[in-house]
């Protein structure tokens, strides 16, 4: 059947030159791309561009203006707060996730815990600040209860509205977030691996040190990084808890942006925002790398 190799009628062919056939398929993606461009990429570009624009055109003065002790201090505080709350949240969140993972995977308890974690990881903000004020604020019920017994937890200062207070409050949303990201990794651990360790004569220590530990390490580190980025970009809780001053970077950006006395410095605010987005982006890239590694091992 050699006839079939040569059609009787020449149909329209792709032009030999001029590249691919013109297609209108890409039009279908235009609304989405335009929307994201307008409300995500354009604002980001405005921030990045704004960091290099002053009243007299292009300038680096916004970036050099950041060399002030209160600005550097705010960023240092942010890093300390984020690192402390990330490490505490990651360790405690991993413990809670382990307790959940060792239970019935379809049980009511697990469903309740994961739903609660979903809400608590998201729903920080003002509600969270108020929850802690109602608990250990100046009129909080634990504070009052302890006072009746002669203990004043604020004998030295009202530390709830300071950095140490923020660390405590932040763990309230960091732990649930860690549970959500760490649980899938724990689910990937198979009981057979433990049995294999035991059949080779290894005990609990050996299992955690040489099998489960190294397997879970990337997921744990990744989770910690995500928690760090999460705390670093948080604003609402601190804003609701601290009425005066800008002790952390996000508060500083907000105050620079909308100064009540009309001293708003949009250029400086953009520069500060740029620094924040760079730090968060670096952390998130590392997190993505670690997550990729985790999913390679645990599937």
């Amino acid at each position, binding site marked *: 059947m050699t006839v079939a190799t040569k059609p009787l009628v020449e149909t329209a062919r792709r032009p030999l030159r001029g590249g691919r056939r013109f297609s209108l398929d890409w039009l*279908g*993606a235009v*609304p989405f*791309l335009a*929307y*994201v461009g*307008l*409300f*995500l990429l*354009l*604002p*980001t570009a*405005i*921030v990045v561009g704004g960091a290099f624009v002053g009243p007299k055109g292009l300038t680096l003065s916004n970036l050099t203006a950041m060399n002030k002790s209160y600005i550097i201090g705010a960023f240092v505080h942010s890093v300390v707060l984020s690192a402390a709350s990330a490490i505490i949240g990651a360790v405690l969140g991993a413990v*809670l996730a382990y*307790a959940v993972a*060792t*239970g019935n995977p379809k049980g009511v*308890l697990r469903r*309740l815990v*994961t739903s*609660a974690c*979903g*809400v608590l990881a*998201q*729903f920080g*903000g*003002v*509600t*969270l600040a*108020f*929850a*802690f004020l*109602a608990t250990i604020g100046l009129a909080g*019920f634990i504070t009052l209860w302890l006072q009746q017994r002669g203990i004043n937890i604020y004998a030295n200062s009202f530390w709830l509205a300071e950095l140490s207070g923020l660390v405590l409050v932040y763990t309230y949303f960091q*732990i*649930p977030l860690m549970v959500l990201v760490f649980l*899938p990794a724990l689910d990937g651990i198979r009981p057979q691996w433990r049995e294999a360790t035991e059949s080779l004569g290894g005990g*609990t220590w050996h299992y955690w040190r040489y099998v489960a530990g190294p397997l879970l390490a990337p997921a744990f580190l990744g989770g910690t990084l995500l928690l760090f980025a999460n705390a670093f*970009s*948080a*604003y*609402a809780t601190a*804003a*609701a808890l601290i009425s005066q001053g800008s002790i952390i970077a996000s508060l500083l*950006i907000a105050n620079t*942006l*909308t100064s009540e006395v009309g001293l708003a410095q*949009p250029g400086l*605010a*953009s520069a500060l*925002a740029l620094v924040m*987005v760079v730090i*968060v982006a670096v952390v*998130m890239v590392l997190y993505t790398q670690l*997550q*990729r590694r*985790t*999913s390679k091992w645990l*599937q």
Partner: protein
Amino acid sequence: MSRNRRLKLQVFRVVVFLVFGAFFLIPIGAMFEFSTRGNGDAPRTLVAWQTIFQTPDLVAAILASLALAVITSLGMLLLLVPTMIWVRLRLPSLSRIVEFLCLLPLTIPGIVLVAGLAPEYRWLSINVSESILTLAFVYLVLVLPYTYRTLHTGLAAIDVKTLSEAARSLGAGWATVMGRIIVPNMWSALLNASLLSVAVVLGEFTIANLLNYVNLQVSIFLVGKANGAVSIAVAVASLMFAFLLLVILSFFGRPRARVARLEEA
């Protein structure tokens, strides 16, 4: 597993759940306690809860946030679902870019986004509308990372290509393919995505506050300066509402692949 170790594990679990349960429930219980306190030595009262509905600003903010939640959910579905289906069928080369763009808001903190949005919203309020509902534009971007994952899982669970080819060969247009073939096959993913959007929108504070709009969270914050008990009552009510939404969500069969998706992100 030896009996000894199983016992140890059970003790460990009970202790962990009790300790964490206390840490997470006490602040919420404290909010109930605080919101029902009477003045001085007066007995417990529900005055604060009743006052919610007598505070017009608060009611307006609650309604605005609910409207924003609905608009954002619908807008998100209208924008994202057709795009994701189209990309899957006709533009596979674009799928990485769409995924990247959808997950990008996780990397750009709200406080940064708001710095760039300020000029855009100034323009919007002058030329289009001053309504708080314009916040839905940016809220749609905020919910993208969460809804993308859910919708992606929902789409991966069905054979979009075969379904659409079958429908097309029977003469269906693209609108019919999307509206009557693919969407009915992934309704639980659509519902999940919508509920997640509602939860995110109801909890949003940063952007509304800095753009000078009074949504639910901003209103709780403002009322709290004058009347702590009332604002705490609203706060705890909205927290319960979000919790209820997510519990409902957990009952709509999450596809197994969801766990794997979370890891990928």
